[in-house]
């Protein structure tokens, strides 16, 4: 525990210094890819399956906590992985609105599945986190915070939609007027091995949200799974340095074409779309009293599943707990705008009706988010569709409002974005 607050001046000063050194490290890390772009390998490489094991071993050897997809409880779950055998080899998933099943593949593809109920936000923005502990002290109260975990993380198997989700949460937690020190500490030094999707999941619509299926930016290494290995592209200098340590050979022209064809086929497979996402802020904020909100509220259970599986939803609540010593712990946990208490102020909830709560979630995700953070809050990963117990489909809801919008004259103008 680091002591802050009521302490005499020395410890806070130490904390400041530590903060500054962390910030510098993060800046250097961000600057590295551009500075060293010339040293990147000119062409993609081909990594064998043994090479993938070597990649995992190298990440462990470099001190990373390596997280990747595993099969647990009948779903793809992100957890600690040591070797390729820990990954969902030979598994795929069948997804539709309100339905998710793992199935055996007739091959031994390592990444032959799509996204499950977990998103990487679980590790960068944990569901449960102690913010501080206050204990009775000489000067009334002493407040201390937990030290941030020192071990950097490596994510293996990050899909294009999830890279986009991480970029979106970076904007929320790192690039606003206030920085979340917990997110920043976890984000710092993160090594990302992306995977280009070899097939579209049943609820995917990343192509229409311009978030996939090909990883374009925000990774150190990106893999495309081919029949006899992985095509690897380095996105940063440190990704290239790591690749150099692995057994690989340059990818042939034919292999590069194969990889491109796989990604193109994935994009073509997607059965769901939100066309013209840029028009959504005006459309949705101009239809806040559309009858479709009543229709969807008839089906919505207000369970909040969509917000928990969403890779960009970031809302939290805090809870204070006490013990017999008189100490207080303040814990932050994921919250959901579907809870009635979420909007509670003295006298009652601002959004008591499920209609208002669904409208808040969807207009925030697709419309208000753009004014707040300069990007849509949706990446088209399809999780909210799959994990909705009644199969409410955000693409269908958008289409319904788009098909019968309120007359332009009756629509309240979308307000100016905040300064």
């Amino acid at each position, binding site marked *: 525990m680091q002591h*802050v*607050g*009521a302490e005499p001046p020395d410890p*806070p000063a130490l904390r400041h210094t530590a*903060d500054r050194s962390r910030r510098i490290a993060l800046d250097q890390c961000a600057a590295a890819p551009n500075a060293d772009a010339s040293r990147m390998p000119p062409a993609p490489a081909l990594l064998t399956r043994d090479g993938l094991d070597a990649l995992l071993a190298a990440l462990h050897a470099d001190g990373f906590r390596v997280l990747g997809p595993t099969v647990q409880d009948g779903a793809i779950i992100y957890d600690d992985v040591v070797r390729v055998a820990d990954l969902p080899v030979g598994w795929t998933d069948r997804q539709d609105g309100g339905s998710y099943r793992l199935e055996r593949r007739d091959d031994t593809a390592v990444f032959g599945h799509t996204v499950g109920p977990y998103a990487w936000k679980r590790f960068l923005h944990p569901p449960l986190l102690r*913010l*501080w502990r*206050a204990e009775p002290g000489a*000067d*009334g*109260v002493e*407040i201390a*915070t937990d030290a941030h975990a020192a071990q950097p993380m490596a994510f293996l198997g990050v899909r294009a939609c999830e890279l986009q989700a991480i970029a979106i949460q970076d904007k*929320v*937690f790192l690039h*606003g*007027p*206030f920085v*979340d*020190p917990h997110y920043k500490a976890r984000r710092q030094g993160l090594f990302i091995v992306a995977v280009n999707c070899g097939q579209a999941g049943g609820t995917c619509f990343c192509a229409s949200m311009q978030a996939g299926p090909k990883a374009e930016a925000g990774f150190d290494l990106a893999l495309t799974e081919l029949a006899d290995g992985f095509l690897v592209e380095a996105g940063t200098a440190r990704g290239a340095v790591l690749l150099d340590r692995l057994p690989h050979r340059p990818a042939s022209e034919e292999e590069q074409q194969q990889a491109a064809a796989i990604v193109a086929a994935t994009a073509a497979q997607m059965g769901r779309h939100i066309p013209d996402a840029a028009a959504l802020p005006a459309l949705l*904020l101009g239809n*806040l*009293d559309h009858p479709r909100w009543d229709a969807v509220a008839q089906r919505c259970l207000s369970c909040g599943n969509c917000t928990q599986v969403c890779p960009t939803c*970031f*809302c*939290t*609540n*805090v809870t*204070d707990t*006490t013990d017999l010593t*008189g100490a*207080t712990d*303040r814990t*932050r946990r994921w*919250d959901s*705008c579907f809870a009635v208490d*979420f*909007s509670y*102020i*003295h*006298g009652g909830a*601002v*959004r*008591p*009706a499920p*209609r*208002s709560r669904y*409208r*808040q979630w969807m*207009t*925030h995700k697709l419309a*208000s988010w753009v*004014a*707040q953070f300069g990007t849509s809050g949706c990446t088209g990963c399809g999780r909210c569709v799959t994990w909705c117990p009644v199969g409410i489909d955000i693409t269908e809801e958008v289409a319904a409002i788009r098909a019968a919008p309120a007359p332009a004259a009756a629509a*309240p103008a979308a*307000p*100016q*974005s*905040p*300064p």
Partner: protein
Amino acid sequence: MDAMPAPVRHADPMVPRPFRITRVIREIDGVFTWRLAAVDGAPFDFRPGQFNMVTQFGVGEIPVSISGDCRRPETLVHTIRAVGPVTEAMQGLRAGAIVGIRGPFGRPWPIDAAIGSDVIFVTSTIGLAPLRPLILEVLHRRQDFGKVVICYGTRGIHDIMFEEDLHAWRARFDTNVHLTVHSAPSGYRGRVGGVAAAIHAARIDGPATVAFVCRSEALTRQAVNTLGERGVTPDRVWVTLERNMKCGIGLCGHCQFGPSFMCKDGPVYRFDEIEALYSVREF
């Protein structure tokens, strides 16, 4: 014109600073004011209209507007109404108790927008608390403004807050105070009626007036309409709104109001900028 002190920002915005209650003042039934001093002795700089997240250790944390004078940063002042579990527990605290403070947060009242204009304050009951720092600052820089009118309404004669201040302001030759109560016992010699009547009675030049309004969300519209009748258009009416807040720094998502986070983009808004969303039910 001397500048107000600028608020400072701390390393971990989620960790409160310990403050000691130096004095508890009972205002009206169920409303109390704390005077606080930082345990580390550092001054607390803020701008009128900003708020703090206030923690009673072991109970919880709530957003509370700052009701003191920004020219006196050595004393932090909060006026609190006991309406829920946290504020009811806070009502039991006495001088000497330690509480946690995070802040100041939020967009302050834009005092500079009123320079050279007449100024009208419209508020009721505890709404005077978030306006009090602004009134004190306007009176501190009195020569920068035209006429200054305070329209303050309460339910009854026992709900009038900050009476000492009201007497002091009323005693000034350069300030008009219209105090009105909804109901009063016979023999009461003050004004009885709604705040709207007080706005109508105000001696202001409507088209050259800036209004600062702090009322409940339902009554804000009525104040804006009445001001409109006096020629104060919505682009010169500043209001405050209220939402659930858990962090104060735009990260917990609770206080969203369309594109804005009330904790950092509000709680002070120019009415014409929010009118469309304000009119949407349950938004």
